């Protein structure tokens, strides 16, 4: 439910700015945050993450790109990367000293999805939008890391 709300917020903000300003990928931040802070030990959470990314990407492509696949591929790649990297770290070590890894994974979630359309479609304006989005994403990433650290402290 939260992911649907985040997707809608991202969409509404993009509508509000009229495409003149790149909005941070709130949907992917929420999804990655959910995967990194999962405590349920449910083996299906990662599969849920993959298909949520797929669905969110398809819907985003249909709304803003017109051709499904661009953001879909980016979202799925990010989730796979997050699952693999996070899977390397033993569950008992995830609550301390992982701030940098979390930051990198969050940053990847903002870096990869918009990169694919820019690489394929190209253009100086595309790169400019991409870089602007990275700058705007940074506060949102730091916000997520703050919450992650708070949650990790509570778990310890």
């Amino acid at each position, binding site marked *: 439910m939260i992911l649907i709300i985040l997707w809608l917020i991202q969409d509404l903000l993009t509508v509000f700015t009229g495409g003149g300003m790149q909005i941070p990928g709130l949907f992917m931040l929420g999804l990655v945050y959910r995967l990194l802070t999962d405590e349920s030990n449910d*083996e299906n959470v990662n599969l849920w993450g*993959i*298909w949520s990314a797929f669905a969110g990407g398809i819907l985003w492509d249909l709304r803003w790109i017109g051709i499904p*696949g661009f953001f*879909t*591929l980016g979202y*799925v790649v990010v989730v796979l990367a997050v699952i693999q990297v996070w899977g390397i770290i033993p569950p008992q070590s995830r609550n301390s000293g992982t701030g940098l890894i979390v930051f990198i994974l969050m940053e990847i979630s903002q870096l990869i999805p918009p990169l694919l359309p820019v690489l394929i479609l190209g253009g100086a304006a595309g790169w400019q939008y991409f870089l602007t989005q990275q700058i705007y994403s940074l506060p949102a990433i730091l916000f997520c890391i703050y919450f992650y650290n708070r949650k990790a402290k509570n778990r310890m």
Partner: protein
Amino acid sequence: MENTRNTAREWVHGLTALILGLFLLGISSGLGVMKSIVDLWGSILFIPEYPAVFLREMFIGWRSWSRDKNTLNDELERLRNENAKLRLDLAKLNSEKIYESHDNEIRTARVTLRAPMSWWSEIRIDRGKQDKITQGLPVFSNGYLIGRVSSVSLMSSWAELITSPSFMIPAVIEETRELGVVVGDGNGSVLLRYIPAGRGVRSGMKVSTAMIGEQVPPGLPIGQISGEFSAGVDGYTTYRIEPGADMSRFYTVSY
């Protein structure tokens, strides 16, 4: 073992999602139905997106209004300046017309008396009623106002000088259009009173009669500002005027 199986499942699902994504990317650009799906999704999202669209339009309207307001303010300021300039030009034009009319019917009179006791107050001239002199008629020297006729007899008249303490005439600073009153101090000085402080009045600015005079027409040159005399506590400043005419030495005057 369980862990490996899970990892393998994740990879299978992940790769399936990727292949499906690539497949969609490959085929959708050539499918006409994709356009319909995109349109359908857009029309479904129209309802939740409506507040954002509304806010955006409101924001754009407000920005446009703000920009228009600034443009209109600039335009207003430009028109004000233009208006002031046109008023100044009109006043100059009126002055020139007055000059011309005076030049056409300029007549001279000889100063027959300037008593030492009232040296800075009045003079007597050798023209009177029979020469069509009337009370209040402006008197000039060297083209500048030096006073006005105060009493008339048949063959001579008395003119009160602008250096007289009882002489008062509305005047205007031509460059700033500030209005004040020209008065004499009885000791050879001419002052311009009641100019609001801080109006950018500077030495050298020309002073002429104002349009609000009763008998003396507007635009008659008096002299120029020579400096500040005093700044009153009431917010008004008095300036010293250097008369255009030599007030110490005139043997004839024109009227």
